């Protein structure tokens, strides 16, 4: 679920192999063969308008990024001395560094999501590069040659079910067997282009977002042909796109009963397509599920899809702007899925204006003025507390979703440091929301030493009585290179009891695990990073999402494939805390459909609380020692006989006077509950 938008050298590559020019190819193939060195000069494209011939070195230089502008006054940048700041570049052999996590497996993305030339030595690549006249292939940056990471084949978001991992891709999606996470294994590659391929799963159904104009109802890869050039004398006339009944932009629904043979059962069209979507379960209705559709792209014409209008809201009350869509999916009859409402989540309740969100600046409540926040980028629903957090371009909003078909906005915030409100997640107790700012759209280098640590960062809000208030920002602390696209992106909670912890992807900034238990003082507790794909030019890559699923962290690497990680103990996180997190098991994980985490009353969970109480010195050394000893003995006896009784006695005698914070008081409470009724 990201907005990709900038900085695509890989575009270069793609083009080299495919398009660059039909014309050029034809013309140049007739030339007699020349030596490579001679060619590097003579094969330069016939001088184009305003351009001079360039040597390969100059070409390379031309694609090199400009250094970041100086830090704006009063802002702080990133740490250049962090080990992540300077890692060796490479697509598959980049330098790696980690703290508190172990990289246990990696699989390359499927062949079906690569162009048919993957090696710089491949004659196809060599020949095409030479004919293009971009320079001497032997001297070109490898990244330019190898067509490695085209956005058209970028990996995107994850969903999980049982032993299966579902990875979206701009060109389709793939399914992996993760029954042994260290030996993750590709099962199915499904070709079905249309980007970005955000996926969710529910029982035997899989949902997939499509927004791009090349999307086809039949999953065809051919897109739609460009119109022929205009007749002479008519060049300046506006020609509207031909309506295409076979075009698909919206949410596809697949039956995945046979994991190796997904079948499309429905394709629900929407005016702006679906950039992301959110699965919404209604606790009171098990026969239906809902999909909230966030469309961020252009509105198509009504000639193609009836009723679509991109008019201003005062001109057309049915405009497709300023709304989200709700699709109702009957679980037993998914083919009957359809849009059942288009909630006006930006409405001004006093005036009825559809564009009612105040804009621009800070958190003050000055004079409000209708503005143009007209889309949500992503919505996270938390049905257990009846709320959803929407990240909606210019605003963060809070929705009451007790009636899932008719969500109602209950609060909205903005922030002068924010460029683009991108995604959101709640703390498990619903008292905090972490929003992300995708400054630069995800394809820009935005974690350089001079990029402010409040821009392109997480903003952590406290949530009380349906009101959001800003507590702090968190940004990847390590400086990243000029050729690494990096900004806050998708993450999920890590279910460590007694703490609020999120694992998060930062594109080529890698994966960062953050503690935001105290929303005013978030800090990093673990990370993984690898070097840039290339150090001469920005080649799109890095982790789109990093999610915890049943004890393991998975990273969706845009260009490379899938990464698998385990947490390892450090002074910031103990083995007991990791083991306690692993006691939480879910059957499905769609991160934007947030589920309440509950921990079993196992002794390992008690030990995690004890470690936290030791860290904050809320218990005396003697009390800690006695409790640890009692727990050990209870474990040895498998909770039989006297040892369990002893735990219960100790629970009742727990001295709670040392708790200086509400957090410690809650930990002591939870610890006592487990000790009273422990389960094996």
């Amino acid at each position, binding site marked *: 679920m990201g907005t990709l938008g900038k900085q695509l050298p890989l575009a270069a590559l793609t083009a080299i192999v495919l398009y660059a020019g039909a014309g050029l190819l034809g013309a140049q193939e007739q030339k007699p063969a020349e030596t490579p060195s001679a060619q590097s000069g003579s094969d330069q494209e016939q001088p184009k*308008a305003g351009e001079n011939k360039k040597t390969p070195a100059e070409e390379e230089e031309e694609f090199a990024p400009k250094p970041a502008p100086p830090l704006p006054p009063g802002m702080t940048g990133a740490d250049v001395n962090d080990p992540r700041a300077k890692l060796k570049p490479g697509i598959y052999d980049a330098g790696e560094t980690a703290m508190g996590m172990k990289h246990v497996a990696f699989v390359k993305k499927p062949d079906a999501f690569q162009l048919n030339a993957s090696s710089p030595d491949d004659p196809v690549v060599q020949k095409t590069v030479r004919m293009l006249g971009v320079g001497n292939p032997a001297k070109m940056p490898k990244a330019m040659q190898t067509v490695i990471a085209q956005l058209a084949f970028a990996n995107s978001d994850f969903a999980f079910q049982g032993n299966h991992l579902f990875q979206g891709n701009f060109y389709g999606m793939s399914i992996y067997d993760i029954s042994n996470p260290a030996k993750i294994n590709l099962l*199915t*590659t499904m070709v079905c282009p249309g980007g970005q391929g955000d996926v969710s799963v529910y029982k035997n159904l899989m949902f997939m977002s499509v927004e791009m104009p090349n999307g086809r109802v039949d999953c065809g890869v051919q897109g739609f042909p460009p119109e022929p050039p205009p007749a002479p004398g008519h060049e300046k006339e506006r020609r509207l*796109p031909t309506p295409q009944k076979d075009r698909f932009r919206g949410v596809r629904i697949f039956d995945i009963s046979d994991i190796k043979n997904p079948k499309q059962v429905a394709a629900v069209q929407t005016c702006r397509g679906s950039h992301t979507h959110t699965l919404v379960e209604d606790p009171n209705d098990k026969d239906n599920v809902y999909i909230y559709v966030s469309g961020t792209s252009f509105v198509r014409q009504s000639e193609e899809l009836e009723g679509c209008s991109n008019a201003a809201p005062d001109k057309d009350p049915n405009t497709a702007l300023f709304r989200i869509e709700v699709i109702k999916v009957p679980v037993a009859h998914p083919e009957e899925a359809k849009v059942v409402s288009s909630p006006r989540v930006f409405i001004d309740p006093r005036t009825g204006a559809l564009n009612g969100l105040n*804009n621009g600046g800070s958190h003050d409540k000055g004079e409000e003025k209708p503005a143009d*926040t007209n889309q949500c980028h992503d919505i996270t629903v938390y049905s257990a507390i009846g709320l959803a957090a929407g990240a909606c371009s210019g605003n963060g909003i809070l929705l009451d979703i007790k009636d899932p078909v008719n969500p109602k906005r209950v609060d909205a915030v903005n922030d002068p440091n924010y460029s683009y409100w991108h995604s959101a997640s709640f703390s498990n107790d619903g008292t905090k929301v972490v929003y992300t700012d995708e400054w630069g759209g995800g394809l*820009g280098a935005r974690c350089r030493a001079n990029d402010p640590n409040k821009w392109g960062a997480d903003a952590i809000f406290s949530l009380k009585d349906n009101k959001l208030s800003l507590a702090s920002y968190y940004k990847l602390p390590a400086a990243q290179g000029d050729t690494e696209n990096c900004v806050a992106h998708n993450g999920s909670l890590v279910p460590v009891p007694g703490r609020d912890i999120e694992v998060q992807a930062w594109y080529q900034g890698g994966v960062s695990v953050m503690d935001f238990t105290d929303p005013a003082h978030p800090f990093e507790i673990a990370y993984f990073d690898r070097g840039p794909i290339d150090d001469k030019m920005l080649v799109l890559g890095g982790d789109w999402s990093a999610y915890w699923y049943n004890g393991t962290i998975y990273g969706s690497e845009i260009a490379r494939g899938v990464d698998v990680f385990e947490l390892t103990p450090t002074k910031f996180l103990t083995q007991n805390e990791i083991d306690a997190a692993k006691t939480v098991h879910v059957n499905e994980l769609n991160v934007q459909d947030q589920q309440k985490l509950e921990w079993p009353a196992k002794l390992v969970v008690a030990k995690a609380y004890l470690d936290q109480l030791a860290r904050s010195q809320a218990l005396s050394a003697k009390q800690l020692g006695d409790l640890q000893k009692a727990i050990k003995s209870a474990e040895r006896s498998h909770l039989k006989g006297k040892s369990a009784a002893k735990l219960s006695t100790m629970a009742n005698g727990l001295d709670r006077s040392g708790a200086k914070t509400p957090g410690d008081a809650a930990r002591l409470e939870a610890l006592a509950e487990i000790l009273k009724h422990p389960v094996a």
Partner: protein
Amino acid sequence: MRRHRDWRRRCGAATLTVAGACALLGSASCAAQNGSVVVQPGAPGEPTKTLPADTHGTLPPIAAADVAFMQGMIMHHSQAVEMTDLIPSHTENQEVRAIGAKIASSQADEIRMMQRWLKARGQATSMAMPGMPDMDMNGKPMTPMPGMLTPEQMAALKAARGAEFDRLFLTGMIQHHGGALVMVKDLFDTAGAGQDAEIFEFVTDVDNGQRAEIKIMQKMLEEMH
């Protein structure tokens, strides 16, 4: 391990059930792909096809409008950079300096991205006639892109200092960004355009990012009054 064998077995079974890649290409490729299949669904209700195991990606077509958009946007962005370059010597306003730094950073990046996109497709990075920056390829006077500041507006901006500069910069940049939104809309209103993933994501992001910046600048202007 057990699981692994299980998949091998299912892969073999595919020869009987689905016309699978393994079936078409034999057990060697089956092993090479760890028993995975490549499939392509049909329209809703239609069956899913199995594709050869060595299927590779192909790309949708590019329209002439895509190329013209990129060339025009480079010119458009260049003026924004020209405007932000004035900030250090023309104003001390911290907020203007901050938004200026943000805009400069994005627009400079994006110019590079667009140049690469065009170069890689064998296209000129400029619409202008070589050596004649004010003429298009046909020798006709270049039409300015929507929202671009007129030479008079640019001159006024260059001449202003302090609060007057801030006001002209913000109004000018709002006008300028507004023009970019028009260009994006025009692109998507053009037949066959915007199917290439890079251009699609790029323009969508230009639209979102510049809308957000417009809002911030509007707010700043309001607060100045």
